[in-house]
């Protein structure tokens, strides 16, 4: 099995690749609509601005093939912005459309706490999640974001709290999304990526 990493120009593609290679995975980077449609497993990393990701998906004609592949059952993992874009829209760029594969809108975290939410935080599992299999319940993951999906979207399997609760992990059939960066989250992150590889195999 090969993991197709959607490379829209975000900075964290090499570190995601490195993390997957350490686990023995075979990866390819792509921005080709054909390669997305034919992928065995898809991974969408993302850092930076929501608008940059959405515009890249549209300008490089990746939106339709991505939705088609996911509807066709291809295992998908979205990281950070890659989780946020699964929803209908984001308050970071309200005029742009997300992929609308999950219901709800991404909102800003409350300004009562320091933003970005930057650093290592713990999760509260809402229900059993194959992504968290074998990971201690008190494990920390690395976050770096100011916007987040509401926990009440119906697909949240783990919640995190920073000023307010938000979706840390979402899962719906073959769709997986994590708000944190598993590629930067030490051993717990590596284990989570390994779980995704196992699910996708």
């Amino acid at each position: 099995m090969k993991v197709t990493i959607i490379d829209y120009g975000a900075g964290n593609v090499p570190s995601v690749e490195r993390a997957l290679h350490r686990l023995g995975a075979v990866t390819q980077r792509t921005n080709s609509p054909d390669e997305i449609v034919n992928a065995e497993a898809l991974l969408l990393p993302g850092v930076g601005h929501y608008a940059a990701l959405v515009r890249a998906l549209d300008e490089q004609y990746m939106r339709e093939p991505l939705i088609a592949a996911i509807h066709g059952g291809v295992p998908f993992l979205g990281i950070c912005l890659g989780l946020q874009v699964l929803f209908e829209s984001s308050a970071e760029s309200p005029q742009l459309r997300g992929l609308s594969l999950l219901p709800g809108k991404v909102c800003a975290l409350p300004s009562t706490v320091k933003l970005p939410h930057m650093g290592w935080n713990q999760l509260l599992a809402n229900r059993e999640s194959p992504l968290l299999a074998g990971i201690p319940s008190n494990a920390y993951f690395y976050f770096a974001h100011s916007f987040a999906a509401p926990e009440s979207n119906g697909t949240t399997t783990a919640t995190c709290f920073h000023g307010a609760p938000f979706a840390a992990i979402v899962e719906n059939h073959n769709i997986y999304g994590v708000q944190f960066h598993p590629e930067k989250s030490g051993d717990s992150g590596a284990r989570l990526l390994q779980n995704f590889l196992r699910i996708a195999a």
Partner: protein
Amino acid sequence: MSLAHRIIPCLDTDGARVVKGVNFVGLRDAGDPVALASRYNKEGADELVVLDIAASRDRRPTFLETIRRVAAELSIPLTAGGGIRTLEDGRAVVRAGADKVTVNTAAVERPKLISELSREFGAQAVVLAIDAKRSGGHWDVMVRGGRESANRDAIEWAKSGVAFGAGEILLTSVDRDGTQAGFDTELTAAISKAVSVPVIASGGAKLPEHFVQIFKEGDADAALAASIFHDGAQPIRTLKEFLAAKSVEVRLPC
């Protein structure tokens, strides 16, 4: 369940080797950045910072190669900087594998540099490094490796830097740097209170108590140190266990 306080080792390099000095002067060799990075990654460091303190143009390719080799060792975030003057400089360190870019002197001279980097990489990737030195009743911003005063108030500059798009402040007390007399809690608390973004305290760390103090009284979100980690005087795991015992929330490695 809340955000853990971060412990961040810092590798000050001349581009290729880790160097060590007191009050920004009198440098000596302190080891191989790749070996140190690998050790800190295993010992439970929460992030790593790599700085090119020489920051000369002709040694830039060497520093970028150091970033690449260090990034390959890490499964934690990497911040890199030193001599970042343009958006293109920032792109080069991000492409080499840094998750965040730190800017200092060039941002004081041209604050739009912060906005340019923030627009391209997101605020979470832009760390404004401020070297502050007490001057009468306030703190002065120092530039060029802490040697020259920029004649700006550190608190005002921190606020302004955040408005330009910085997502984090790396605050070094020039008075404390290299002295091992403890972090400047007063300075850190003042900056932390003034800005909405996380603050990394730096300069003066030696004892585990210094870290307790900077988190509890200095309101720091993270604490950075260099030599006490490099020479093995303060293992990161022991430090974190000490902090946990003092009820400071930290991420204890498994």
